[in-house]
């Protein structure tokens, strides 16, 4: 789905419109975070984060300061010169998020970014994402297979049918912000989650 939104794949029917224009290639204002962290193993954390800026030929001092900002934002201080193989799964995804945010995108697309992490790390990364989103304040579109993750993070949950994927339902999430983990035990949370569950079916 996100590969369509970002223009990496062409839709079988219909078209993707972003800011009034049809998407052929990934628009400048959209940044992607993949299912796997998808880091370049031969680049250090710092160099992975600066990759998008390097491709845009940004001057060194600009690259440096933006990368610093993102490293602080995702909490990777001290790991700048580590290689991806030295990182845990959660840290790798933080690098991937920093690499996306360093482009200062208007829209951040997350494709099941925490799918390969264990349950606890996943929970921690959700909170982390909320915090980052709070400070960064841009649109985030995230694909997930976890109902609780969707309800916990989102303002709107869109349920898609499996193959061929088409929109089945839109469920607004009225939970107040900032959110915290206690909310996941609230009655309201449970109600929204079960509505999503019903829409998904079996």
């Amino acid at each position: 789905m996100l590969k369509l939104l970002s223009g990496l794949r062409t839709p079988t029917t219909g078209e993707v419109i972003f800011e009034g224009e049809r998407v052929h290639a990934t628009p400048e204002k959209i940044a992607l975070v993949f299912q796997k962290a998808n880091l370049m193993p031969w680049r250090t954390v710092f160099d992975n984060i600066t990759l998008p800026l390097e491709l845009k030929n940004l001057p060194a001092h600009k690259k440096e300061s933006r990368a610093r900002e993102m490293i602080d934002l995702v909490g990777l201080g001290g790991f700048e010169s580590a290689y991806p193989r030295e990182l845990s799964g959660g840290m790798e995804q933080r690098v991937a998020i920093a690499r996306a945010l360093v482009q200062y995108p208007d829209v951040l697309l997350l494709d099941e970014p925490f799918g390969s992490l264990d349950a606890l790390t996943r929970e921690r990364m959700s909170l982390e994402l909320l915090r980052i989103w709070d400070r960064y304040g841009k649109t985030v579109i995230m694909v997930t297979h976890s109902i609780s993750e969707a309800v916990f993070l989102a303002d709107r949950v869109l349920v898609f049918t499996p193959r061929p994927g088409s929109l089945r339902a839109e469920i607004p999430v009225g939970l107040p912000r900032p959110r915290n983990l206690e909310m996941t035990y609230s009655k309201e949370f449970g109600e929204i989650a079960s509505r999503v569950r019903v829409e998904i079916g079996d």
Partner: protein
Amino acid sequence: MTLSDLLNSNHHPRAHKHRGTRVIIAFLSLASVVLLWQMLIWVNQLPPYILPSPLRVWTQFVIVLNDGSLLRHTLITLGETLGGLALGLSIAAVLGYVLAHSPVLEKFLEPYIVASQSVPIVAIAPLLIIWFGSGLTSKVLICALIVFFPALINTIVGVRSVEQDLSDLMRSLRADRWQTFIHLELPSALPMVLSGIKIGATLAVIGAVIGEFVSADRGLGFLITSARNNFDTALVFVAIFALVIIAIALYGTVAMLEKILLKWKQ
């Protein structure tokens, strides 16, 4: 002695001890081979033109070292090897990159590439000497030919090993053709390319010697042929050792390059 040993020995006191033991083991290993060699001569009463004694080989080595002939021949062979290696690798790298991106062209050229590999290089060497003379050119071409195939295959495999997800990433970052090459394809292919170079480095030495065996008036291969004709078996040994040293030095250089360039892998 690897580079990481050199680096580690600075801050690991244990590495010193470890290395000391290794030097002793290496020395004992060498000493026992020399001893066995000498025993072989004593027990079987072998004449020096069949198997010269270690001392005889050493004496011969000192002689050719001092009159400069060993160095001269070694440099000739080394030059041919390096020239052939450079030529073979460059052609293999460019062609490999193109073929990796064009399966149609690959299918088209495949029979010829496979055929070039099936013809024994020893058999074509005389032909190349006929065409290009017995000078440097023919030797470089023989080396290049022998290096070409493994380097080509490794380049193709290397370039094809680029992860689909990473190409998607590069596309989502709007990287152009050149940027994708520099930042993705080159580093992805590098491990395979380097191992191709490593294989090629030892093969190139073989190529140079084959060329010199067929026709030459200098080089270590020539030195072996002429020493054999003079029943100077000790000199044959010296030349063989020189060849081994060239091969090891080349291999070691590439291995060291690997350690530096593929630091992210260890």
